[in-house]
Each structure stands twice: as structure tokens, then as C-alpha cells.
């Protein structure tokens, strides 16, 4: 009986949580909303790349169309093999979406598993796991990834797995510290006292209560992961050509011909910067809305307040 009522409560709460969240996003975070729109556009472009793109992914427009400047026929110009840059930028969005989402999901799952086990069980396991996390944190990530990729070979899935593993291990610290905070709560002790199994406590009591930091970790990691994939592809340790990746388009032929056909280097980078900017803005808004510490009650003794001490500016300062 107790169980069914608790399920009902969480469900109702969760529904209103998302609606409430959306309303607050639009109302309080104009820049975050713009970021959200860019994120949505990126997602849609990635999913419907085949429908939007004017040409095929690796389709050449013929030898007469090698390195043509942007024109009505191909808006972003063509590359050294006569391929339409706009098409490749659109398909590049798909690569970024796939890598960004799957690597971040993998990383978050790994962070959750390591963080929850290490934080909840503690003791010797915690000590051992944390030393291993220390080791990974002492390795310069990009450099270590270059070595691992040269061992397992380049490609989309190797990149996803490597980024997911490394970022997952490093991110487990954040999950672990929240678990340690949540574990001390009375309801966890109560659950132990009425004889809940450890698995049940972890899934039903710990996991829902560390959702906010997990979501924040996820949203702040996605743009980061997309940038890392682009850097790896740029260095030639990421997604190999002919698959269009924004980072890869900037290296190789993009660099060889960059003086003769600068559009080959300009557009993919611009798309990458836009996408990462949008997701960052959106992620920031999500973090601000989910983190109760950053909510309201601010700014009474700032320099602004010095000029007009009586002014209570809480709704405005919420944006801080």
C-alpha cells in the first residue's frame, strides 16, 4: 500500500516538474531558450539529414565543380572532390548528434555506476576506485585518447567508447559526492531499517535524489564531448573520411586547400561553434533552474545596491 501511494506521488510530481521547468525556462532565461532552440535545430538536422541535404553525403557534382565558391547551386561551395559543403555540414550534424548523445549517455551511465557504488558502499572499495579515478585524472585526456585510438583504430564507435569511458570515470567524482550527501538522509536509514535490499535502496531512494546533478552533468558534457570529437577528428584520430565530421572537414583536404577554397574550412567550424554555443547556453539555463542554491535572494550588497540601497531587485537578479 505504502509503495503504490509513493509511486503516485512521484509520478504527479514529475509531470508538473517538466511543465514547470519548461515555463520557467521560457520566462526566466531568454538566452537559454535561444540555446534550446539551437539544440533542437541541431537534433532535427541530425535526424532528418537525408531529407534536408540537397545532395548525397559523398556525391560529387562532377569535375567541373571542384572547389567552386558559394553559389546558388551550392550555397556553401564545394570541396576539392566536388562535394557540396552544405550537404556535408548537414551530415556532420548527424555525426555530432550521434557522438554527442551516445558518448555522453555512456559516460553518464558509467559515472552513475561507479559513483553510486563507490559513494554508497564506501570503505576499501571506495578507496581503491578513487585511486584509479586519480590515475585517469592525471592523464591528459586528449593525449591519452590519441594513444588509445591508435590502439583500437579510428572510427565513430571507438571514439564514442573512448570518450564515454574516460569522461565517465572522471565524472564519477561528482556523482559520488552527491551520493555521499544523499546517503546521510533519514529516509535512507529508514529504508535500511525496514529491511530494503541494497539494490532497492540504490535504485528507489538514492538514484531519484541525485537526478539533478546527473542531468546537469549530462547537459554540460554534451557540448564538451562534441568539441572533443571534433578535436580528435581534426588531428586524424577521430572519425576517418569520407564520413563528414565537422572536425575532420577542417583537417586533411580542408587544410590543404584552405588558401584556395577557404569556405571548405569556414562553414564546418562555424556550424560547430554555433552548435556548441547553443547547447552551452541551454545547459547553463538548465543548471541554473535545477540548482536551488543559485535561486533568488541575491544582490543586496553588490555595487549596484550601493547606489540604491532600498531597491529590492530579486526577480531581475534571479538571472544571475
Amino acid at each position: 500500500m505504502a509503495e503504490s501511494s509513493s509511486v503516485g506521488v512521484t509520478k504527479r510530481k514529475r509531470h508538473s516538474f517538466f511543465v514547470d521547468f519548461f515555463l520557467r525556462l521560457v520566462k526566466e532565461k531568454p538566452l537559454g531558450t535561444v540555446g534550446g532552440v539551437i539544440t533542437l535545430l541541431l537534433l532535427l538536422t541530425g535526424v532528418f539529414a537525408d531529407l534536408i541535404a540537397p545532395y548525397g553525403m559523398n556525391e560529387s557534382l562532377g569535375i567541373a565543380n571542384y572547389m567552386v565558391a558559394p553559389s546558388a547551386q551550392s550555397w556553401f561551395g564545394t570541396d576539392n572532390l566536388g562535394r557540396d559543403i552544405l550537404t556535408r555540414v548537414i551530415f556532420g550534424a548527424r555525426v555530432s548528434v550521434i557522438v554527442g548523445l551516445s558518448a555522453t549517455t555512456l559516460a553518464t551511465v558509467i559515472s552513475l555506476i561507479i559513483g553510486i557504488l563507490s559513494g554508497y558502499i564506501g570503505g576499501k572499495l571506495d578507496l581503491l576506485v578513487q585511486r584509479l579515478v586519480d590515475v585517469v585524472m592525471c592523464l591528459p585526456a586528449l593525449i591519452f585518447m590519441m594513444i588509445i585510438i591508435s590502439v583500437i583504430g579510428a572510427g565513430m564507435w571507438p571514439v564514442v567508447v573512448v570518450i564515454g569511458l574516460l569522461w565517465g570515470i572522471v565524472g564519477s567524482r561528482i556523482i559520488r559526492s552527491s551520493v555521499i550527501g544523499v546517503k546521510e538522509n533519514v529516509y535512507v536509514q529508514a529504508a535500511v531499517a525496514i529491511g530494503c535490499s541494497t539494490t532497492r535502496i540504490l535504485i528507489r531512494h538514492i538514484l531519484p535524489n541525485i537526478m539533478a546533478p546527473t542531468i546537469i552533468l549530462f547537459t554540460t558534457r554534451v557540448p564538451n564531448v562534441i568539441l572533443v570529437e571534433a578535436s580528435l577528428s581534426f588531428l586524424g584520430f577521430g572519425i576517418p573520411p569520407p564520413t563528414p565530421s565537422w572536425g575532420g572537414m577542417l583537417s586533411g583536404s580542408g587544410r590543404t586547400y584552405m588558401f584556395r577554397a577557404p569556405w571548405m574550412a569556414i562553414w564546418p567550424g562555424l556550424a560547430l561553434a554555433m552548435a556548441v554555443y547553443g547547447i552551452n547556453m541551454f545547459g547553463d539555463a538548465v543548471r541554473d533552474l535545477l540548482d536551488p542554491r543559485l535561486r533568488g535572494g541575491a544582490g543586496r550588497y553588490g555595487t549596484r545596491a550601493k547606489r540604491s540601497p532600498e531597491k529590492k531587485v530579486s526577480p531581475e537578479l534571479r538571472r544571475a
Partner: protein
Amino acid sequence: MRAYVIKRLLLAIPTLLIISLVAFFVVHLIPGDIISSMGATDPKTEIDRSMLERQFGLDAPAIVQYARWMGFAPQVDGSFSGISQGELGDSWWQGKSVVELVASAWPVTLELSIMGFTIGQLIALLIGIYSALRQDTRGDYIGRTIAILCISVPGFWIATMIIVLPSIWWGYMPSIMLIPFTEDPIGNLKMFIVPAIVMGMAMSGATMRMTRTMMLEVLRQDYIRTAWAKGLRERVVVVRHALKNALIPVITIIGIQMPVLIGGSVIIEQIFCLPGMGRLFYHATIQRDEPLVGTLLLIFAVILILINLLVDLTYAFLDPRVRYK
């Protein structure tokens, strides 16, 4: 304090041992070995595989090779010369010792990092403080936009644009040859300033935002009101009372970002053709130069461990409540 430093350095030893194991065995797994690469470059010459394997010590099991590399086991000629004896080994490809290669590369990376770090962090701190003091004004919005742009715009793209656009518009090309500081200090600085700024940019965004957030929090404390009430000047209130207290999390963020500086050096040195540690590592990885890759990874890890220690010691300087025992 000294006891704390010694303890931290001792704790670093097991970490470094694990890193050396990881470095050696991961690098060892890279497919393709030196001998087949040698055969590939010059297919005409018959190579005596077993003779070469013995010469490089590749006929021994991996664990023995690791022990030799670290200096825990005697080399082929019976002498102990490994990392623990300070012998970093020889590069397979470049016919030079790793020490020699690193000695010529590290000044470039150090100069680049220090310049990039200083410029990036100084600007970040100034904009961050300004943004907090003028919260929700136009200047604040501009500052915050710059911060997010610094995080979002990939350094390798900006660097490429900096090389491409001036050459198209004005026919200007930056120098490809390294100008040593001792020969032409001005030319050397001119050469380094652009790559350094691009490298520093990637780190400055996070610092800027953290500085702003922390300053906003600190400016609301009672002791700031006390400082104002005492009639102190704004500069003193901001710098001595607010900034010093706001800096601790900022230092943490800076410390966390140091690996970015090392990763950035690989990309930036590659684009601007600077012969530093990053470029050395990049080519070593492409050429499968196992001893060079492993040793460089270990060197990077040592640098990071020392930087982390330095960051922790900075806390004690900034916060008198922090005492290390």
C-alpha cells in the same frame, strides 16, 4: 607545510607507477611495430628480423620490457638504465635520445603555455570581476557572451581562420621557422603571441564565469558591508576583501583545466608549426615511436601531478583557515 608536500610527493609515487604501467602497456598494444615499419620504408633491403628484435630488446616478454624501460631489470647489455635511473631511452625513429628531443621541445611549449595562460587568465579575471561588479548591465552581458564564446568556439578553427583570412585579405603569412628568443626577442614574441592567445582563450571562459559567480556570492557577505562601512575605497574592498575570498574556487577551476593546456598544445603547435612537446608527441604517435610516446605520457602526468600540488598549496596562501599537516 613541508611535511604535507613530502606526503603528497610520496603519494604520487604509486599513482605514477600505475600510470607508467598504463602508458607502457597501452602503447605496447599499438598495432604495427618498428621493424615492419622499417621494412615498409625501404622494401628492397632484407632485414634480419630476429637480429633487430634482439637489438631493440623486443624478443623479451612485455613485462620484462616494461621492467627494463622503468629500470627495474637489467637491459640487454646487463646495465640498469631506465626511467628510475634517469635514462629516458632513445627514440626509435629520430635517432636521438628522448632527453635530447624533449630538451629542444620543452622551451617552446613552456613559453607558449605561460604566455597563453597569463594572457588568458588575466583577461578572464578582469572581465569576470567587471561582470560581477556591474551585474546585469550591458557590460556584464557582453562579458558573459565573450565567456561562452571562448568555451564554444573551437581553438583549432579560430587558429585556422587566423592563418587563412589574413593571407587571403592582405597576403600575409606568419613565419613557419621558429625564431629563437635569444636571437630576436621581439620576433620571437610576435611569433608566439597569436598561438598563445588562441590557446589561452579555451581556458579563459570557465575562469571568467567562475570568477563572476564567486564574486557575486562574496560581494553579498557581511564583511563586505563592514568594509564599505569602514569607508574603504572601492579598489580595496574589491581587491583585498572580495577578490581574495572569491579566488579559491577559481583556482580549482584553473587547476582542473591544466590538462586542457597540454591537449591544446598538441593542436595549436600542429597548426602553427611550432616544434614543441605537443608536436613531438603528435608525430611520435603517428610514427608509433613507442619509447617516445610512453615517456612523453609519463612526463605529462608528472607535470599534471606537480600542478595539482601547486594548486592545493595555493589554497593555503589564499585562505588562512586551510592548514596542511
